[in-house]
């Protein structure tokens, strides 16, 4: 009845209006406009409702992260503290003359005067030391020597430290005289610049980050596959068993999930170490000689085992929630139509569970790519990830610029993978529940 009325009204409207004129609302305004106005009000109200959260996220999450990531290119400390030197070096290159003009030497002395006053010289020295070893002690030494330089700045500086008579010192100063620098990003992919400005690979024995990025990806991939292989049957059981049994099983999945990460990691150390429970049992059974106990932890194996265990719930839960929605009679129907168990599973059940696989895999992979604490504790040297190096540069070496560059690359990598995944599988096909 209602349909018919609506149809009747539309027909009436169409016949009543001349075909050329726009649809109008009761107040005579074009319908499109008044509809948009009404919708805008609704949108504004909705926006006002989420605005507090949006503001909170922007202030406490996006802004600090953006600020941190910005450090990967920032180099203001040099031009801010040595403005005269930066200006004096502007038109000097190592090709025109091995050493810059007297004005540059005078500028260095003048800049140091102010930096020592503000006690900033050692800080600038630290910054430059990331690029070339020796600047830290050179600048510290200048803090003592500069006030003693009375006569000719050039002679005085070179006498204070012979580094000022070397072209490399000035080349480094000039190269890092800008407000922004690509140096941290170059370092983060094991590249460096030669004296003449060409970008080359670092010496073989200093290359580490590309290797670590690759290792992080590879181990994360293995962990994802391992959690899938272990988690799929468990999720299947959970989804198909009667509710009473599956609830008990569910608790077994969730209990470790609720247990502290550190406790679970430490438990693996107790189990896997050479004098640990598993090795003891193997020796007792006579499967392994006492002198040849297995090394299962403090290496890649340790990282893989511990992280697979820790991330397993992140695979099981999405799988379970998807499998729960697959009606059991589909498989029964397939079997009644003559499919074998395998065909029924592979052709009917499995394709329906793929959204869960997608969700679980992407969750586990992205979580493990940025994992830090477990590789740090059980990874030894062969099982540490890129995140461990980022943490090292934040807390130990204080090279926050490099840490920010590595973190930016990691973030970009995750974004690219996410985009690729979207292209290949389609993010709409992912279900978390």
């Amino acid at each position: 009845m209602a349909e018919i009325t609506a149809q009747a009204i539309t027909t009436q409207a169409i016949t009543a209006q001349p075909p050329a004129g726009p649809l109008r609302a009761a107040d005579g305004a074009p319908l499109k406009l008044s509809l948009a106005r009404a919708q805008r009000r609704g949108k504004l109200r909705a926006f006002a409702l989420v605005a507090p959260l949006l503001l909170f996220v922007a202030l406490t999450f996006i802004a600090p992260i953006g600020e941190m990531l910005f450090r990967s290119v920032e180099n203001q400390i040099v031009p801010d503290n040595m403005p005269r030197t930066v200006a004096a070096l502007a038109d000097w290159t190592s090709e025109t003359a091995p050493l810059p003009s007297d004005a540059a030497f005078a500028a260095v002395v003048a800049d140091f005067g102010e930096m020592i006053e503000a006690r900033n010289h050692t800080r600038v020295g630290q910054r430059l030391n990331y690029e070339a070893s020796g600047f830290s002690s050179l600048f510290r030494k200048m803090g003592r020597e500069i006030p003693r330089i009375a006569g000719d700045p050039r002679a005085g500086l070179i006498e204070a430290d012979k580094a000022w008579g070397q072209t490399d010192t000035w080349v480094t100063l000039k190269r890092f005289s800008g407000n922004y620098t690509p140096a941290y990003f170059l370092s983060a992919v094991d590249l460096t610049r030669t004296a003449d400005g060409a970008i080359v690979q670092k010496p073989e024995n200093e290359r580490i980050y590309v290797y670590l990025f690759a290792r992080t990806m590879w181990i994360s991939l293995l962990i994802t596959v391992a959690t899938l292989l272990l988690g799929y049957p468990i999720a299947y059981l959970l989804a198909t068993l009667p509710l009473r049994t599956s609830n008990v099983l569910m608790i077994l999945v969730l209990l470790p999930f609720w247990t502290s990460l550190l406790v679970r990691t430490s438990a693996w150390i107790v189990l896997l170490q050479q004098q640990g429970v598993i090795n003891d049992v193997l020796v007792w059974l006579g499967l392994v000689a006492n002198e040849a106990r297995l090394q299962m932890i403090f290496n890649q194996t340790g990282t893989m085992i511990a992280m697979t265990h820790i991330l397993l719930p992140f695979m099981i839960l999405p799988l379970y929630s998807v499998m729960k929605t697959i009606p059991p009679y589909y498989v029964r129907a397939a079997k009644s139509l003559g499919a074998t168990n395998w065909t029924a599973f592979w052709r009917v059940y499995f394709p329906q569970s793929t959204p869960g696989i997608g969700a679980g895999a992407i969750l586990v992979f992205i979580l493990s790519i940025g994992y830090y604490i477990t590789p740090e504790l059980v990874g030894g040297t062969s099982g540490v990830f890129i995140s461990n190096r980022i943490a090292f540069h934040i807390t130990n070496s204080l090279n926050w610029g490099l840490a920010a560059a590595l973190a930016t690359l990691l973030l970009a990598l995750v974004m690219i993978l996410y985009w690729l995944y979207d292209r290949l599988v389609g993010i709409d096909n992912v279900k978390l529940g």
Partner: protein
Amino acid sequence: MLKKMMAGAALAGLMAGPLAAQTTDLTIVSWGGAYSNSQNKAYHEPYAAQNAAVKIINDESSSQAVAKLRAMNEAGNITWDVVDVEGPDSQRLCDEGLAMRIDFDDWLAPAPDGATATADFGEALINECFIPQIVFSTTFGYRTDVAAWGGKTPTSVCDVFDLATFPGKRSLERGPKKNLEWALLCDGVAKADLYDVLSTPEGVQRALAKLDTIKPETIWWTAGAETPQRLADGEVVIGSTYNGRLFAVIEEQKQPVAMLWDYQVFDFDGWIIPTGVPEAKMPVIKDYIRFATDTQRLADQAKYISYGPARASSAPLVSTHAELGIEMAQHMPTDPANRGNILVNNIEWWADNQDEVEAVFQAWLAR
């Protein structure tokens, strides 16, 4: 009745107000564990007994002190008052302008014989920001019950590199500092030439080549507690760590472990004051530091942990362990019997070269 109670409460509030304002919080950052405990017993408790108005708050963040101080400084909100750091970290904090420069003779108490603080601390004053407390060393401990060693015990640091005579797993710190020096010493470099050799890329490679000989048998540590734990578990047979940790394993936990003092690496640990602490707090901070670093207090700390006091005048006052009753002097890294061969970290050299050498070392480790 109700009115009376309210008036009483208001009165109590009035009285509590000024009283509460008088107590000052003093946030002291240290390493936690047995070390913080020794500071509690030797410094904090006696100080609190004399100064009821000061409330000491312990924070155990020293291992991240440098990074956290930098973050606090950038945020312009310094919440720490006194921070315990190692010598090399104090150098970086001083270089970065994050630690206050100290006038030692003004801040610190003179020795009982009247010698100035500068003279009493002597070479422990490694930079202008650092108020030393203790000398500690990084040295090796080994298990005394390894059957495969046939009754031999290691006597030289080079025995760590001798897998034929002393087979078994080693535990070394996951960083180049100290390891490279030991490796070069055992590769035939004279102690005097160490840093000259290390200053060349070939020198670093030479040290790494020496470490290569034991790399498959080595587990690397980042926290000082790891080696003692692994030694006690029998997971490693020999390993480096801080001497106080080994003392705890040997004397307090009675594990079959012994010290190898050869070429122990000396380091200082002490206080720094963050730049930018509120001016109002300075008198309390100064008062605490003066108290906690006087001759008696530094000697007292050695009753609880086997680290040597940084003042020359404290050494004769070192007595017995507070609970075990054993003579502490022989367990100090500075004891003449233990300091036959020693190394002192060249802080200046490491400040310059740490970043580059670290990169080489980590690349070597990762493969």
